[in-house]
């Protein structure tokens, strides 16, 4: 098993009272999985993703990645884990405007000492996401969809075992959303596990597993049948 969480709890304080944003989550993800987690805003999806990315420490429970509990790692080791084991596509625009598109994609490679040069790999990834011609462009010249694809290419530079995406299509139009989701499907088919958080039901059909998150708890659902574009979903967000 690539990823396993056991009884994962993350509590936040609001005034004098604490409430669980993630409440006893047990989740297993294998290398072949493309998991979509859906849920309303504030349901705890992003908190779960940040716990798995090592950006937050759990209140209780464990997060095992390839058998290692990442919540017990120090900053150096958890940073290395984030840099090499996972690729993270954050919500919203996250491409660094100070660097060219190519340098943005190359950057994670150089955050830890590695042999070789990341340029060829970065160019190849940019080619895969359809942005090879924009390698030397400034991020300021790119559209929202193109920037998201740069983030995805950047997340893949160190060959992560798990690609995590937080609302990757939230601010994109329907056509660009479809392009991004097709890209995720190809990545998944190439052997990288994907854990995607979204509140757009239209995108969940690209994966092989769907989970819903509500008030910090996670429930596995049956995969919808006719997606994308299908009308029938076996679940609805409750108002």
């Amino acid at each position, binding site marked *: 098993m690539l990823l396993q969480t056991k009884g994962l709890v993350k509590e936040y304080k609001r005034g004098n009272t604490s409430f669980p944003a993630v409440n006893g989550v047990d989740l297993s993800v294998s290398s072949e999985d493309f998991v979509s987690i859906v849920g309303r805003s504030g349901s705890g999806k*992003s*908190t779960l993703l*940040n716990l798995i*990315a090592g*950006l*937050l420490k759990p209140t209780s429970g464990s997060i095992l990645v390839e058998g290692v509990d990442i919540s017990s790692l120090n*900053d*150096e080791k958890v*940073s*290395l884990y*984030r*840099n*090499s084991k996972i690729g*993270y596509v*954050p*919500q*919203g625009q*996250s491409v*660094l*405007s*100070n*660097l060219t598109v*190519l*340098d943005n994609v*190359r*950057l*994670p*490679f*150089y*955050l*830890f000492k590695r042999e070789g*040069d990341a*340029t*060829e790999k970065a*160019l190849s990834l940019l080619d895969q996401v359809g942005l090879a011609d924009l390698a030397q462009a400034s991020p300021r010249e790119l559209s929202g969809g193109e920037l998201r694809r740069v983030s995805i290419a*950047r997340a893949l530079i160190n060959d992560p075992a798990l690609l995590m995406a937080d609302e990757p299509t939230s601010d994109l139009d329907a056509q660009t959303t479809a392009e991004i989701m097709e890209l995720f499907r190809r990545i998944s088919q190439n052997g990288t596990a994907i854990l995607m958080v979204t509140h757009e039901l239209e995108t969940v059909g690209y994966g092989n597993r769907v989970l819903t998150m509500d008030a910090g708890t996670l429930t596995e659902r049956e995969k919808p049948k006719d997606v994308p574009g299908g009308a029938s979903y076996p679940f609805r967000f409750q108002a």
Partner: protein
Amino acid sequence: MKQAPLSIRRLSVCNLKRRPFRTACHIAVVAVLAFVLFGGSILSVSLKNGTRSIQERFGADLIIVPQNYDKSMESILLKGEPNYFYFDQAIADQAARQEGVSRISTQFFLITLKADCCSVPIQLVGFHPETDFTIQPWISQKYGRDLEDGQLVVGSDVADSGRKSLTFFNRQYPIAARLEKTGTGLDASVFTNMNTIRSLFQGAKAAGMGFLSGTDPEKSISSVLVKIDSHYDADTVAHNIRSHISGVQVIKTRSMFTGISNTLGSLPVFLYAISIALWVLAAAVLTVMFSVTANERKKEFAVLRILGATRKKLAGILLNESLFASMAGGIIGVAAAAAVVFPFNVYIGDRLGLPYLQPQISVVLGILALSLFLSFLVGPLASAHSAIKISRAETYLTMREGE
């Protein structure tokens, strides 16, 4: 396509380049600081050097000059402003007899309005090598033998260093030695023995310089230099001379140098105070600048954290940026100060009216190193708080703020 690795250092340089205005402001602040630190220190040390040099080299305890010519004498010694004044040579004999006087030597001043070496008047000083105790020791040290008739010893600022002779009143005089720089009026003076000064005097007279009429160099002198006995103090001997010889003014050299030191005393303190104030101000300005920009760049650093940058690396990026900008500012400021203080040192000394002697290269290098160190330090120190703050920021919360 081969590209340079994206090290933390390169990332910092990219960040500086992409924010040219902010970077230029940082560089400008540090450049001004470095300019004041280096330029002010060189100025201060040069003035102190000048005063120390004249104190060390001037062997006389008292100088006797005609009444009301004490300021003129000081101007000759300190500022190199040529002048002439005479009184009877008999005064020297009277001075020698006063209680507490150990040795005396006389000098004869002449000025020339025209010489082929110089566009400004030069002070000519005639002295007696056999009795002199102020100039002769330098000449012996520099020249190694006695000055012959017709030979000149010139101050460091007189004519080019390659010149072998000077022409005064249509006659050529060979240069026997050139004195080391003192930072005083002596640098712009020409020294010779009494026989030669008489020859120059005759030349001046023949050239029609009317101001010399009525003066006889055989019977006149300009000043009497007095070395006092070690058992007496300068005040007592000066009082003795004033009491027994009329029409003269006695200059106590120590008082003259104390006067310079007093004038000078406040200047280095002022320069150091300005330097410290500016350093603190620069640190404060840069601290505010880094605090504001670090706040603006929170998301950028959060993204780097997501990509796997350690907290230490985040701090390193900011500290590198501040160091590189400070280095650029420091080098520019020091270079600008050097371009002002070194080529214009004579002008600065003249304008200040104080003895100015540039320090030795080792001292200059020491000041350079200290100025650069303090300039380089100010940026990283000012950014330290922001660097710590950024490295401790919770990425999750920062990313949420941007949603």
